[in-house]
Structures are given as C-alpha cells and as structure tokens.
C-alpha cells in the first residue's frame, strides 16, 4: 500500500472511531472541508507538509501514521490461549497487536538511529 493510501485509511478509521467529522478535521488543519474530502477520497495526494499536522491531530507519531500496519500484521504469528468470546476481547487483542507492532517499529527506529 502506498503512503497516501496508508495515511488516508488511518485517518478515516481514526475519524470513525473517535466520532469526528470532516468538518472537525478541516478546522483542526485550518483548511477547507472540500479539501479534506478530496484528500480522503484519494482525489488529491496528501502533501508531505500535511503529514506531521495530521499525525499531531490524531495523536500519532509520523511513523505510525505512515507505517503500513497491514504488512506488519502478516509478520506476526499469534497463538491465543483460550478464545476471545466477545467483541470487546477481540478488540483488546487487536490493540495488543497494534502495541506490539508499534514497539517493534520504535525499536527498529532506535537501531537505525544508533
């Protein structure tokens, strides 16, 4: 998945999960609602300068916003002990995997930086 698509996907999910509108995002970024619509529909490529702004609004690091977590997930092998029998516990396992992926991403960053 290209960076633009990754970022769009993450922003869309985040807005949905947090109950925020395009209007809200437009105000946060100080741009028009129409531009937000174009960006999130993929009609207009997100300018690199918008990425840190978006990351800040979403409370993520730039790495997190740009990292394709679907690729990482494939590299994780998960064995549950027992089963997840409700939606909440399934979500907890998803969150666990996200934290592990983020841990690995930051760890890689540490190694590359050292």
């Amino acid at each position, binding site marked *: 998945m290209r960076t633009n698509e990754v970022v769009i996907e993450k922003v869309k999910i985040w807005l949905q999960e947090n109950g925020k509108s395009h209007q809200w995002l437009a105000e946060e970024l100080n741009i028009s609602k129409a531009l937000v619509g174009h960006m999130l529909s993929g009609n207009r490529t997100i300018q690199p300068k918008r990425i840190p702004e978006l*990351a*800040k609004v979403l*409370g*993520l*690091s730039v*790495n*997190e916003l740009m990292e394709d977590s679907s690729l990482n997930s494939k*590299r*994780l*092998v*998960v*064995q*549950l*002990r*027992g*089963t*997840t*029998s*409700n939606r*909440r*516990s399934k979500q*907890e*396992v998803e*969150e*666990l*995997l996200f*934290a*592990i992926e*983020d*841990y*690995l991403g*930051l*760890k890689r*960053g*540490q190694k590359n*930086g050292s």
Partner: protein
Amino acid sequence: MDRKKQAEAIAEAFAADFLEETTANAIFIGSHIERILASKAKVIYQYVEDPTYYGAAVSHESGAQFIALNTFHPLRVRYFTAAHELWHLSEASQLQDEDFDHERAADRFAAAIMLPKAIMKDLWLQFKKLYEPKEAIILIADFSEVPYEAVVRRLKELGISLIGVSFTEEEWKNERVKLDLSESTLDFPQPFERFTAYEHVVEDALEKGVVDSLAASHKLKKYNSQLAKKLQEQEMKRVAEEEQHET
C-alpha cells in the same frame, strides 16, 4: 505410544532438565514463573474481561517473542498460564515435528515445573497423614500457587489414587469454606495492565525527539496511565507557556 502420551512423556523429560538448570527439584517456583518467563520473552499484562481468554503468544519474524497474560483470571490461573506459555518458548518445543501435540505438552510441562515430581510425592505422603485429601490438595495448591484442578491432575499423573475430589476451581473455593480454611489471595485476580518493554522504548523515543509528549502519552495510556497523564500535563504546560510568550 499415542500422540498425547508421547507429548506428555517428552514434556515431562524436558521439565526435569529445565528445573535442574533453572531452580531445583525441591522447591515450588510459584509466582517466580513470571520472572522466568520475562527472561525469555517480553511479557504483557492485559486486563480482558473474558473468562475464556487467558492470553496469547505472539512472535515476529525477527525472532522477537511476546507473551500476553490476562490479569482477569485469579493469580493461580495466571501463573499456570505463564508456565504453559514457557513450553511454547522452549527449545524443546522447537525440536518437535508438525504432528506433535503442543497444547498437551504445554500443560504437562507447566504441571511438571510448577509441581515437581519429587516434592509432590514427599508432600503428599506427609499431608495425607495429617489432613483429609481435600484439605491436603488445597494446601498444596496454596504452597505451589497453582490451580486446584492442576494439583489433582498432577497427583493422578504421579499414580496417586484420588476419589471424590473432582471439582471446578469455583467449587474448590467453596470447599475451602466448608473446611474452615481462610480465603486465599490466589483465588482472586490482580487486575492491571503493563507492557514494560513498550514503556521503555516510548520513553527513549520521547527523549530522542522521535515522538512528542502527546504521542507518547497516547501510546502509554493503556499500559501506564499515570505516566501518560504526566506526559499529557507536561505537554499542556509547554503549550500554555508558548502561548504566553506569543502574547
């Protein structure tokens, strides 16, 4: 030898080696199992209100291993889960072929390291002179910090004949009351969430400016809410100071 019996025999043999190298055959590991587990993998404590979920083993292609333990369960169940997961991380587990019954082996391995053969036999000989079987089982479960059902299963595995002691964990708690034994903290969960390795790596990223306080706070809010709150307050203070300078 059938698949299950083969898995049990192999797990028991490797458990004996493990005890010799790690601790000793003459003590109960108990809660120390989590320290041992933490030396082999990153341990993550989750609180998931789901009685059917005990935890997870997650491995990454880089070789990094993570074990999640659900703190929703009573302590004795959590410790036994930790011992079970240790099998999956062991070299012994890696050596087996695809047909091997790993779940069976993991349970046997957990029982064998948490309830070593030698000490179990000695203790049972002593206790059966002093107490009725149910009381002896409860006392051993408390000493070893494992589920009651695991003690019963282990005694049977060691060839000890037991009649009328087949209860669920909840029923065992009622048996304690009937026998006038005090409550055990091991029968209750210790709910908390922690992912220490993640905490350290986020703090490091924050120090190096890879992430800002807000992002760090967001990442840690689940696993260390106090630190997350502190970071958020720091950021708010910083922003307020900046605004004051601008005006």
